[in-house]
């Protein structure tokens, strides 16, 4: 997409909306390029400590290499672990809130709203009787997740609520967390 001299080249909020809209159009015209596969590899370190790294993904019809991104997961000391990283469930919450926050920035920018600050707090409630096998009626996962956004921007409360709502509608991780997915695990 051509940027004319009259158009400011510095994207608002650091989001390049033109590029996002261009990508949307390109993938509408060539839907096969929209098929992506995300990957990560995980190595056990010690105890409950594991390190997950991403080396690349497939998309736009080809492989893309990347490096340097990893996340350490572990359990806290009250579980007799070494606490070498966030717990996997906290990593899930990080994914959710990171995705929603990115969405807030994209949607706000697309609507011409400059953001001064965005802070999100996420909480997930869990009954450990599930994973510990104490009560078969209790599920392992969250029985509820709450996200609270504190957004400072030149916008009305309704506009901010609408941005947050739209961010959820377009969020991959929100969909992953709220809807079932078939998971196959092999060894």
């Amino acid at each position, binding site marked *: 997409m051509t940027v004319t001299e009259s158009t400011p080249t510095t994207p608002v909020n650091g989001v390049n909306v033109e590029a996002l809209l261009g990508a949307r159009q390109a993938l509408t015209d060539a*839907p096969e390029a929209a098929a992506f596969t995300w990957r990560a590899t995980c190595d056990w370190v010690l105890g409950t400590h594991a390190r997950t790294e991403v080396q690349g993904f497939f998309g736009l019809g080809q492989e893309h290499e990347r490096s340097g991104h990893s996340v350490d997961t572990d359990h806290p000391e009250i579980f007799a672990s070494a606490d070498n990283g966030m717990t996997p469930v906290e990593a899930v919450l990080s994914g959710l809130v990171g995705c929603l926050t990115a969405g807030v920035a994209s949607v706000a920018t697309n609507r011409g709203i400059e953001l001064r600050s965005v802070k999100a707090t996420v909480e997930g409630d869990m009954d450990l009787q599930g994973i510990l096998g104490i009560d078969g009626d209790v599920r392992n996962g969250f029985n509820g997740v709450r996200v609270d956004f504190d957004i400072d921007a030149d916008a009305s409360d*309704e506009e901010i*609520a*609408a941005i947050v*709502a*739209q961010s*959820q*509608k377009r969020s991959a991780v*929100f*969909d992953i*967390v*709220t*809807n*079932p997915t078939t998971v196959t695990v092999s060894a």
Partner: protein
Amino acid sequence: MTHHSAAAQVTTVIIGGGQAGLAMSRALQMASIDHVVLERGQVANSWRTERWDSLRLLTPNWMTRLPGHRYDGGDPEGYMTAAETAAFLDHYRAVIAAPVVTGATVSAVEIDEPGRYRVRTTVGDWRCRSVVVATGACTTPHVPALAGRLPGRIQQLTPTAYRNPDTVDGERVLVVGASAGGAQIADELARAGRDVTLAAGNHVRVPRTYRGMDIHWWMDRLGLLDERWTEVDDIVRARRTPSLQVVGHPDRRPLDLNTLQANGATVVGRLAGVTDAAVQFSGSLANTVTSADLKLGRLLDAIDDHVDATGLGAEVAAPDRPAATVVAEAPLLRSPADIDAVLWATGYRPHYTWLPEQLLDRKGAIVHEGGVMAAPGMYVLGLPFLRRRKSSFLDGVGPDALDLADHLVGWLDGRGHASSRPAPGGPGIRRSDPVGVAL
């Protein structure tokens, strides 16, 4: 393929004898274009055979204006039943003397060469220079693929098969879809004492009346219904917008997730999955209802602003905003053993298997720009937001028919097959959506 039987010759073939086909017939008649209207059943066939007993139009009777004829009965604020709608359209056919051939099911439209078409039907073929597809938006109910995973003992039906609560076997009914059809049928079943679960995905919540006036009166007055397809930011999304969650009941009662719950229905999230062990609902219901309430708020804000700006305040009632939607803690899972029947109110997807493939997109929908199809002389009419927000309404198809008849006449006169977009600076000039959202 050679066809030996003689084909009838006509300038334009209109496929479909409902509101769109009849409006186009009238428009072509006024332009002195000879034509024929091919109807698979009788005039207004869907209204006679594929609508449930209690269904009424969503728009008030006064909003029933077709080229050359309008509602002139004694109840302008009322809502026509399906049978009354069929009778109205039959009367319209007689008033305008539309050349309708009934019992003619189209099996194929063939392009001999651009501008030379052959329409094959069960009662013979027509050769023509131009074709108008007016088969309507609500012919084939869409049922999601996961329907096939439900056990065979569960009765499954669509709104075209539903007549009244007696159509539904068993007590425990899952209604999928919370737009006009799903919400109305869920309400009827709940009032009949059935144990109803309503799976609600994205929907458009509006009150039946606001400040004492019908919501369509407001939308008409604010000019929302006349908005053109060239004026909205995202026409693809605007065309996908589901029907308003509203009912045309004589007592003008509201219909929303609050009233449904008050009548005993359980509201859950969008149907997300079906396994042998569980029917799964999305955990996104909170955002679904928040989005619907925010959109509703913007519409009512626009109405209040309009009242303030035009000094209408003394003539209409005070603002009476409906309460925010409250959904009880919704279950995420239900055992298939606890469901007797599923009603799929998941929209309609017309199937155009009889049209040449090159005129369709990869999902089988007709490619068109404001109703002008890719093949010269071919048009489609009566689809959602074809040229105006009201395009699929009984009250909205008329202006579209007149626009497209103009284009058709121009093409026959050799003025080409150019775009039918309104000229820049004309009434179609782009402006921002006054409600700030696609309704």
